[in-house]
């Protein structure tokens, strides 16, 4: 009985037993490397499915989302949580969300902000040939926050919703900016507390959001392919 208890203790607390006890219990050997590897492999589908359909952690490289992501030229990139469940469960993507999507031209993932959804009319920025564009059904218009260093819808036009992979929900790495991503709002001013740099950056983010929204007008005269009876 004592040998049993000692055996159990050794399994839970990772102790090594003296040889005299070890001989009492037949299955005392620690699981071998091979067995452990097999266990990891066996449970891998569950873990992979979780990252595919619920949440995943990724590093954001590049300067196109400045100043929201990677605001300074530090060597370490932002680490963020992407929410795939929102996209897969079919909840509509809204204006102002930051999404990761597959680049429609090159084979890579990009992180951009949704400017307009289907049915909106957007005033485009220089590289785009037309001055105004109607975002077609099932498409969105994405742009980077930094207009000079980004390859976005102004280059390749509206993107299909099917290319959207995940929605950015939480910043975890630079510890001073840790927290969920909130829609920009006017920062509160309280008596006695001086306006610091954070207050000013929040106000600047709100101003940028208002500027972005000013370029989008709603228009619902869309061609609906399904209603015309074609499949």
């Amino acid at each position, binding site marked *: 009985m004592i040998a049993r208890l000692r055996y159990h203790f050794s399994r839970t607390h990772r102790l090594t037993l003296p040889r005299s006890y070890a001989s009492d219990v037949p299955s005392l050997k620690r699981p071998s490397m091979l067995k452990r590897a097999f266990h990891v492999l066996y449970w891998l*589908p569950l873990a992979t499915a979780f990252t595919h359909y619920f949440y995943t952690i990724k590093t954001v490289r590049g300067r196109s989302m400045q100043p929201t992501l990677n605001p300074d030229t530090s060597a370490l990139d932002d680490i963020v949580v992407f929410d795939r469940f929102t996209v897969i469960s079919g909840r509509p993507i809204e204006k102002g969300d930051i999404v990761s999507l597959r680049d429609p031209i090159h084979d890579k993932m990009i992180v951009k902000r949704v400017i307009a959804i289907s049915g909106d009319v957007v005033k485009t920025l220089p590289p785009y040939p037309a001055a105004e564009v109607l975002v077609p059904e*099932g498409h969105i218009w994405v742009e980077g926050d930094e207009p000079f260093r980004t390859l976005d819808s102004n280059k390749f036009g509206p993107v*299909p919703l099917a290319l959207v992979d995940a929605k950015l929900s939480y910043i975890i790495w630079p510890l001073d900016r840790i927290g969920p991503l909130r829609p920009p709002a006017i920062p509160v001013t309280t008596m006695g507390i001086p306006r610091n740099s954070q207050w000013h950056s929040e106000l600047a983010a709100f101003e940028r959001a208002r500027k972005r929204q000013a370029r989008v007008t709603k228009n619902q005269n869309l061609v609906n392919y399904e209603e015309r009876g074609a499949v």
Partner: protein
Amino acid sequence: MFRNSALKKLGLGCLHAVNLACFLHLFKENVGSPCLTYGPSMLPTFESTGEVAIESIISHRLAPQSLARGELISLKSPINPNRIICKRVIGLPGDTICVDPTGLKASTTEHVSIPKGHIWIAGDNTSCSTDSRDYGPVSVALIRGRIVARVRCFR
């Protein structure tokens, strides 16, 4: 030692079942599986009442460059993200394509050049298909896999 060992066994069994389901689903989404096709858009090739085809996803993942004109592909619909459609590849990046040779949706003289990273797709049944003639060239990133075989049903 454990009083509720039956409950524990049940929970572990459920976890194993979920794990197996995850494995099968990931296999279907990343390697390939039989799938059901229906709709009149691919009519001479696939029956409109429903037919089973083998979709190979891994062949596109491993060799995306080997896509050729005339191949059947499955892709996410550019107008409805929840829908998977099956079409034939007509043009590759850099090609100049006549938008609609039948003249149903555009005049037969209208031509378009396909941009980089895009392809031109069309259904086999031109009179009843929503394809690149409606929404233009589609991005290569929308492609899921290739349709490599059809399961013949004896009726």
